């Protein structure tokens, strides 16, 4: 067990992943390598690997954030002294857009299979909101679902290609689930608190990232090649760009989403 942990820690230290700037919710690419490495080694030569970075810009009128009425749930309301707001469109102070899921949609050599990271991806229900709001996970990787509120949440996945689940968590507890196939994106929702919403992107590879508090993303450890990169946003739609990266190259890609 400790051997596993160390192995995964080392790979994570390989410094390829960590998203350039992630807020509390914004997160990085998925594969932290890990235990399954014993079964499948990471199939890309990291010495010549390429990186795609960028920022998600936002133009147009910055939408007003909608305040969530949490009066029915005092415990949660107290966790948001300045109020809680819906996260469907979050424009950062510097004008960049948060919570965009950026991933490699196509272009990877078909013969590559990636190890499933042993470290779980975590989602927390804290203050009657999901943390993070948008995130990625690999097929078969454990999703660890925590309730830190100590009151009833049900977490319901409403996928179209994966099988669904609907789990009740009436107290502080953690449970685990996995997704069996790729899907962009699986909505997660709580029926007790109709404002709670999160989206998870499920991919067979680790090449994904989420724009955080500075709108930046980073996808590393890519084999050199030409990729279709998609930037997905829950309200403002997906956009794609084709990007070619050479050996050891880092390429900057800009996406711009327009508000109404």
């Amino acid at each position, binding site marked *: 067990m400790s051997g596993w942990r160390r192995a995964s820690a080392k790979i994570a230290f390989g410094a390829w992943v960590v998203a350039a700037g992630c807020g509390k919710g914004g997160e990085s690419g998925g594969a932290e390598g890990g235990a399954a490495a014993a079964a499948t080694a990471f199939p890309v030569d990291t010495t010549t690997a390429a990186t795609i970075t960028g920022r998600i810009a936002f133009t147009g009128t910055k939408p007003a954030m909608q305040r969530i009425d949490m009066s029915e749930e005092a415990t949660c309301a107290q966790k948001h002294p300045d109020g809680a707001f819906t996260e469907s469109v979050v424009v950062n102070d510097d004008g960049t857009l948060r919570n965009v899921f950026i991933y490699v949609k196509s272009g990877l050599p078909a013969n590559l299979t990636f190890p499933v990271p042993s470290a779980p991806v975590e989602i927390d229900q804290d203050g009657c909101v999901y943390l993070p709001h948008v995130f990625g996970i690999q097929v078969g990787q454990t999703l660890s679902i925590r309730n830190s509120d100590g*009151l*009833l949440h049900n977490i*319901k996945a409403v996928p179209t290609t994966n099988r669904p689940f609907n*789990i*009740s968590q009436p107290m502080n*507890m953690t449970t685990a689930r996995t997704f069996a196939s790729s899907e962009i994106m699986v909505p997660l929702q709580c*029926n007790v608190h109709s404002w709670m919403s999160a989206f998870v992107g499920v991919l067979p590879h680790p090449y994904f990232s989420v724009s955080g508090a500075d709108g930046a993303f980073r996808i590393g450890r890519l084999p050199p090649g030409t990729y279709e990169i998609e930037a997905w946003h829950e309200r403002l739609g997906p956009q794609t760009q084709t990007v070619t990266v050479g050996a050891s190259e880092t390429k900057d890609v800009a996406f711009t989403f327009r508000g109404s």
Partner: protein
Amino acid sequence: MRSRRALAGAAAGLAAGLALLAAAAAPRHQQPATQADDEGRRVYDKWCAGCHGEDGRGDGPGAGPVLPKPRDFTRALYQVRTTATGEIPTDADIRHVVDEGMPGTSMPAWKTTLSGGEREAVVRYLKSFSSAFATAPTALRFGRNPGGGRAAVDSGGALYRRIECWKCHGEAGRGDGRSAPTLKDDFGNPIRATDLTQNWTFNGGASVEDIYRVLRTGLDGTPMPSFSDLIEGNIITDDDLWRVATYVRSLSPEEPPRVRDVVSAARIEGSLPAGPDDSAWARADGYYFPLVGQVIVKPRWFAPTVSGVWVQALHNGQALALRVTWHDPSQSPDTSWNVWRGRITRSMTSDDSVPADTTSPLPDRLAVQFPARVPRGMERPYFLMGSAEQPVYLWQWESEPRAAAEGLARGVGQFEPLAGAADTLASAAVYDHGEWRVQLVRALATADSANQLQFVPGRAIPMAIFAWDGSNGETGTRMSVGSWVAIYLGEPARAGTYLWPLLAMLSTGGLGLVVIVRAQRSAGSSKQPSDTADSEAV
């Protein structure tokens, strides 16, 4: 089991009609199928496609305006399972639901219509609509009910509160939890948090075992979650969950209420009850009458809130007191139900040319209908609020402003209040955790005998009940309706034989609400479920 049949008849009346319509319209399924599927396909096309659609997408011609909508089989979301949340059901699970149907919905039971072989074949065929059935499901291991009687009910009740079932189902289980107005299924349709005091409407069955199974598996495609992770995480034990199921079962009567034809208003001495919660009502017999959506006159209504009322009646020779009790999860108007009202209106409008109003506040309503005068023979006015030639006399109660009025109606929606008559009808109402209890009192004899029915003891007087839930967008012809029954005001001395002519008189057609007339020795009694369970086998 006459009562079950009658109830099922009431609920499934619509379903049967739709099924017939559907069967007639069902086109042939075009999908290629193996030889083994031929029989399944034949059965499906003939009996199921009308509702579930020829390609299994839940879009058959009979699907139109009902809620819940027929299932779309292509997504392989099944409610009644022995498998974990998100898992496909076993063949036996699907077979079970095909055999038994889904009470509380338009999904019929097929065990008497189709042979065992046909049902087996159609189960195989249903699975062919989704590739999810490529893998084999694993049934969960269910423990045994530890029993425990009253103590189990109490500790189950404590758990019901602790694990917060009430947030959806309400503190008294009547589907009035604060999250209830926001609930929708995976297809975006509004869905009720089940009224747990009416186990005969549970989709997956009424027994403790059925309830326990639902708690373990959840109802996929709906907000009802699985509680299995609590057991796996050693947070509660399997026995605890059985106790929750035992508690939920205890909220409903032993047997579904029996459908009666005659409300007997016992004669009492002295004053009538002061209000709906007067203890005198505890001693009065209760009668259950199912109501169904009004689907005769447009705009029709296929998603009514009120599925039945309990009626009690007493008189003292001077005045008649009625107490009508029904479940409605909202005290209308209530803006927290606006989300619900918008959704229900959007899901139901396909039927109607008249667009439903989704914004102006609507009250809850109850109407008690009588003929304008006690009929001599068998004839009664048209059950749906009379006609131009034969008007009906109505008591109409509203939640906001809270008052009752008398009037005449000459056809549905044609209520004309009686001028100056307001004083003769007194009303009092209590709203309590998803239940309305309304008392209506009127003198037996009044001055305006031309317009107001004069009640006479010893005669069977036709009576019908209608209800509206404002938060469900119900107003006008969007309402719950019941068929003619009768009220009989008792006389102090005589007993017994009066019922025979009365029973001969009662036979009701119209809305497919099957009230089976049965020669009963006496009007008998059936207490409300919240009082005493009525376990008389019929």
